[in-house]
């Protein structure tokens, strides 16, 4: 099993199976460049949000406000450009700044007020929803009519919309940040055991705060790009929240089982999307996405709990003499 990597690369095998299956089933529809492009660009926003949730998850906190941030920043960008005739870059800057501010506020509530991140971000998400309604003046804003704005994400490069390359750049950056820098190591340490991290001289409060700022900022960027790709929506972001967590948890069973990781998440996003797209071609029904994502989230979390690596780790921990440390998952930071 481990020789073939069936455990660590199961999603890749699954993806290959999807491609072969739907390739044989509907070759004229499925095996086309346009399908590849559709899947790649339509899932880019979802994958960015997957990365956005990985950062706080690695640090041991949940950020449930990312969907609301996507909605708000998309609406801000659209309203500023469409109704107030702002310059595109200025509008983008304000929208992303709104994301950053939300991250700072989330961090403040979690670190300084010591509210559990789960509750805190659930609360801010609801507040952001209200703010979004105020900004949009209760009407769905229109897509700004500018070629530059649409080219921001839809410009074709080598057969792909350019947003796919943005995703690649973001993934590369966060892979580097999480896997290859002292900061990433410290984030994972805080997530693994906040008390041990604190007693090793790591500033747990700071990294918790930073991780929430990162997730909100990245969600803000994703919101702007989403607006450019498909137009502002009052609800789309909320629909992205669950798939983002499904991808993050499914990703944590891949490549480096037991650890939230970037490439595992990207793979998870695209394998799920391939399956959904193929099934939609075959059946033509619309409810597949929700069904697939929901099932994937539950199965992924169950897998993460039962994965061989984690299981044997637990077993070894139990066998080790003298009280080996148990898996201690406390997603609450200890403010220093």
């Amino acid at each position, binding site marked *: 099993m481990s020789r073939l990597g069936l455990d660590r690369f199961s999603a890749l095998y699954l993806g290959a199976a999807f491609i072969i299956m739907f390739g044989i089933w509907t070759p004229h529809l499925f095996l086309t460049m346009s399908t590849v492009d559709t899947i790649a660009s339509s899932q880019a926003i979802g994958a960015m949000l997957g990365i956005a949730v990985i950062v706080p998850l690695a640090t041991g906190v949940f950020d449930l406000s990312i969907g609301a941030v996507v909605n708000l920043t998309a609406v801000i960008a659209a309203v500023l450009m469409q109704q107030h005739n702002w310059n595109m870059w200025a509008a983008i800057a304000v929208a992303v700044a709104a994301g950053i501010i939300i991250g700072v506020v989330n961090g403040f509530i979690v670190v300084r007020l010591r509210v559990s991140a789960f509750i805190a971000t659930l609360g801010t998400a609801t507040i952001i929803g209200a703010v979004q309604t105020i900004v949009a003046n209760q009407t769905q804003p229109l897509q700004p009519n500018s070629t530059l704005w649409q080219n921001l994400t839809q410009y074709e490069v080598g057969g792909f919309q350019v947003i796919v390359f943005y995703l690649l750049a973001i993934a590369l950056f966060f892979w*580097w940040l999480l896997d*290859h*820098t*002292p900061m990433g*190591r*410290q984030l*994972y*340490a805080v*997530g*693994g*055991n906040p*008390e*041990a*991290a*604190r*007693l*090793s*001289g*790591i*500033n747990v409060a700071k990294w918790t705060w930073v991780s929430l700022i990162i997730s909100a900022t990245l969600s803000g960027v994703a919101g702007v790009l989403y607006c450019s790709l498909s137009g502002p929506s009052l609800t789309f972001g909320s629909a992205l929240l669950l798939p983002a967590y499904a991808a993050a948890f499914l990703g944590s069973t891949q490549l480096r089982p*037991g*650890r939230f990781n970037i490439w595992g998440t990207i793979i998870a996003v695209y394998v799920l999307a391939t399956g959904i797209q193929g099934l939609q071609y075959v059946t033509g029904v619309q409810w597949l996405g929700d069904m697939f994502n929901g099932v994937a989230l539950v199965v992924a979390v169950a897998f993460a709990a039962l994965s061989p690596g984690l299981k*044997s*780790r637990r077993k*070894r*921990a139990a*066998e*080790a*003499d*003298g*009280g*080996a*440390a*148990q*898996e*201690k998952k406390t997603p609450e930071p200890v403010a*220093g």
Partner: protein
Amino acid sequence: MSDHFPMSAVSDVAEPGNVAEPGNVAGQGNAAEPGEAGEAALEVHGLCKTFGATRALLPLDLRVGRGEVHALVGENGSGKSTFIKLLSGYHKPDAGEVLVGGHQLALGSAAASHAAGCRFVHQDLGLIASETVLDNLYAGNGYPTAFGTVNGRVARKLAAEDLARAGVDLDPRRVVGTLSPAEQTGVAIARALRRSDGGGPQLLVLDEPTARLPDREVGVLLALVRSVTKAGVAVIYVSHRIDEVLEVAESVSVLRDGRKVASRPVAGLDHASLVALLAGDGVEEADVSTHVPPPPDAPVLLAVDKLTSGRLREVSFEVRQGEVVGIAGITGSGRETVLAAIFGGEPREAGQVTVAGQPVRGGRPDYGVAAGLAYLPPDRRSAVVSGQTARENLVLAKLRVHWRWPKISRRAERSETRTWFSRLNVRPVTGIEQPLSSFSGGNQQKILFGKWLRLDPKVLLLDEPTQGVDIATKAALHKEILAAADAGACAVVSSSDAGELIAVCHRILVMRDGRIAVTLIGKDRTMANMTRASLGTGAENAGNAASADNPASAGNAA
């Protein structure tokens, strides 16, 4: 007898009456099993187990009489845990048979083990701290009910009986989190032995029951163990603490490398002979007296001035370069908080900490680390980052060392980790990319030592540095402490193990009520003096306590 446990709380407990005295005297080797005169609660014949290529347990024979306390001792990885897991049905043995109360036990089944009357209390007691004793006793199953509703009155009566049988005197309505650690262990024992849980318990296995207990409460637990045996239940008592074994057990089996090397009555053994059996070729224990104490004009590396935090009240002391200072004291004396308060793990209310002349800001560990302090917490749970490998844990406190733009060099980290593994003799050698939590307790502790030693700290603050590790590892860690002091650092060791403090400390500060009550130097560093000073009996001033010159006069009567 100076290495006996300084506890006397159990001296008034009568010996269990129905225990057959071990028939033979010590020194006759394995030929005669102890406890042969009594009826056997447990008989084990040829039990063995291999994991892959590892022979975890070679064919083992063992006999424990009814109402007997049989100690099981051995280094980490000697096969104790494997044996217990075979008994509990967690593992299935390769061969062998087990008789419990004369009946054949179907091996490899937890249900069969339970039905036969085997009960287990693990080091992690598995109690729910926020619930009452009553709920902890019956939450698993077995609430007495009337029409599906918990019958509170009957439940309380039942709980009182179950607690009394285990020798615990507690109100079952108390919340477990408010109990002392020894009382919590008592609740776990009562739960294991409860009547409503299918038939009569025959055998109680206690896995390191005192590892997390403060010194003062060990006596309470040993009394509990004795009262359990009065009900005819045999006890297998697993512990690293030699003195406890000598005190509570009637017989002892020593495992080494998966093999039983001896099974003896305890009556003829003393500390030294048991250690010799345990360690085989003999462990050379660390001894601070063979080290030259630092000269009186050595520079002061750590100065603590009027430190107040939690229970601490204006604690002041200095530690010089090359010096190892011990901190003793009972639970609640402030001993448990003093190192964390110096380091910054606990908030500092008042006072000043100076490292090599530089004042250190309090309340934040990162300031402490930057100033050259290193702190090993008493509980490995707050030291090990689960999910990270041995390498990642080892380098965690200083990640910049191997930073080569644009990334941390894993190769350099691995090579450094290998160096530390060989220096500290960590097993398995090939495990540097394994999760740290998969290592045995002793090896985890070695790696955590390495984590701080690699920073070349000026001051090592070690809280219970050898808790739950075997004798060989303990000696190795003690030598590392002395070596670090020789190399120009200094160390402060807080420990509930008086023998440990005497072995490695030039000077011992005994704490009482948040203050340093007595300082013991040189020949005055005896268990008797420490016990007396920590309890504050009689001699209230330091001079008197320190002048007690006969260590054998105090100690335990049991």
